[in-house]
């Protein structure tokens, strides 16, 4: 290793999973269902049918893409809030210890 040593802002990230992060497993179950639904029902050539006014395969791809882009912003907000809160909490503990 190039060297080690504690640096500020790293302790706020826990090495293990935070309890709420296990919810991501539930999300993966949901994502599996979504994949099954799109693969089995939307990837078809049925020009007389439409979904959201679009051809079915295009609508299916849109469903998947909307899901992951929404997850991106939601998870960014959650992680930013949680880690910043932990940082503030650790900062105040430092101050108390110094006093």
């Amino acid at each position: 290793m190039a060297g080690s040593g504690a640096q500020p802002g790293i302790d706020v990230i826990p090495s293990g999973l935070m309890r709420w992060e296990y919810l991501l497993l539930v999300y993966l179950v949901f994502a599996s269902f979504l994949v099954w639904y799109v693969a089995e029902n939307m990837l078809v050539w049925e020009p007389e049918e439409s979904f959201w006014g679009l051809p079915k395969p295009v609508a299916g791809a849109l469903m998947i893409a909307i899901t992951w882009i929404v997850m991106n912003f939601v998870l960014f907000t959650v992680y930013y809030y949680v880690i910043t809160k932990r940082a503030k909490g650790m900062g105040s503990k430092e101050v108390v210890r110094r006093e």
Partner: protein
Amino acid sequence: MNLSPWSLVVLSTLVAFFSFTLIAGYIGARRTGRGLHEFYVAGGMLAPITVMFTYMATYMEAWEFVGMPSVIVSEGFEWWVMEMIFYLSFVALWFMVGLRIYRVGKLYRYITPTDLIVHRVGGFERFLRILLAIMIVYATIIYVGMIYIPAAGVLSAATGGEIPYHVFLFLYVIFIVIYISAGGLRAVAYADIIAGVTFIIAFISMIYAALIFWGGFDKLAWKAYTSDIAPEIFQKTQPFQYFWTMLIFYGLSWLFIPHLVVRLFAAKDYKGVLIGGMGSNAGFFIGAFVSPLLLGLSLAAYYGSNLPEVEVVEGYVPSLFMDLFGQGPFLVLLLLGLIAITRSTIDSMLLLVSSIVDIDLIERGIGIKISERKRRIATTLVIIGVALLSILVALAPEAPMVIIGYELAWPAYAVIAWPTIVMLFWRRANKYGGLASYLVGFISLLLFTYVIWPEAPHNPFGLWEGTLPSLLAVAALIIVSLATPPPPKEFIEEYYGVRSS
């Protein structure tokens, strides 16, 4: 050989771009400090916006811009949908894994991805460094070769085939070799920003043009869906388990892709990781969803089954733009964007190989004591060797780049990623399990791909190609770790920052 003025413009665009980035690399090199940590991970001081751009520029490549639209009409729409499925798991778990990689990277000042792996495994360091170097170099050769295909194919198609694919292939590789020899890789992060900005300008112009031409997204979608090629390309041909294993095994394996992992080591702080990750994921929505969808549908709508004659299918995209808008500044802008994205990815891959050879092989693996100058020469020669060997993949490509990626390149990364991600969280994993996992994963990958099931998907169950080797690697990690003594308590306490009761 008499070339038309337009072909000369295309050729000049390639030369001009390489010259420009070589200068940018030189200026960047003067601005960066000395030392390995500075050289390979920018001293771990990249701000959020730089992390975002470097991550996005490295990730977004010809794969999205020309590979995916072409595969939609050459192989079927489902192959692009699989890429969307990949993002379902990759994006959702990116913050969770990315923060942990950043944490240990910062704590122990890792330079290469192998640093992280050998440290966590906690033993067999020399052997493991050599094994991982071989695994990464193997994957890199396929990856770089895969990117050569659109790099040369697009330029050749832009000249209407006047300059053949193989001429551009050799020219491109010669430029890459000159670039490496002149030390251009030294400022890859700065060159990435230029590539990213060029790509965004080219991409926005492209969306605007595509929508104006077709009169709206829904009209484009229906025109494509009712074209004479539609019954062939809009039907599912792969079994559900292939889609599902793409979600789980392919998607998660990209959380530890070596050349992207080092970008996490380079982040200044956790905000850089979070903002950089969110921003680049948002960029992927444009680069991986909107762009290939618009272009792929445009190809189907415009050509139907009368696709243009090109040497490699990746040439469909420039052919479309030439037919729609003619030869001119707009096409030059697009070509610039395409050259930029292929180059930025190759840069990152070769920079990674450079660090692997320099640090993992020469310094810490084989342990040869040679001067700094000789070490630099040896490293440069190996990178040039990789750049040259990669031509083999692109010489006579049997499949579109996307299919080569799914079938050969990504499985090679998956067998590195899966055991590593498990070890990031599972404290019981020990050095015996760690070593066994990489050995079993790599050997089974080679056996399945080249010996036992040489036909894709390299397994009889209809699973994604990387699934079985990744599963075997993780199984070896768990079984061998549980069958042997646990790792030392002091090591676990230090590595995970926990106190035992």
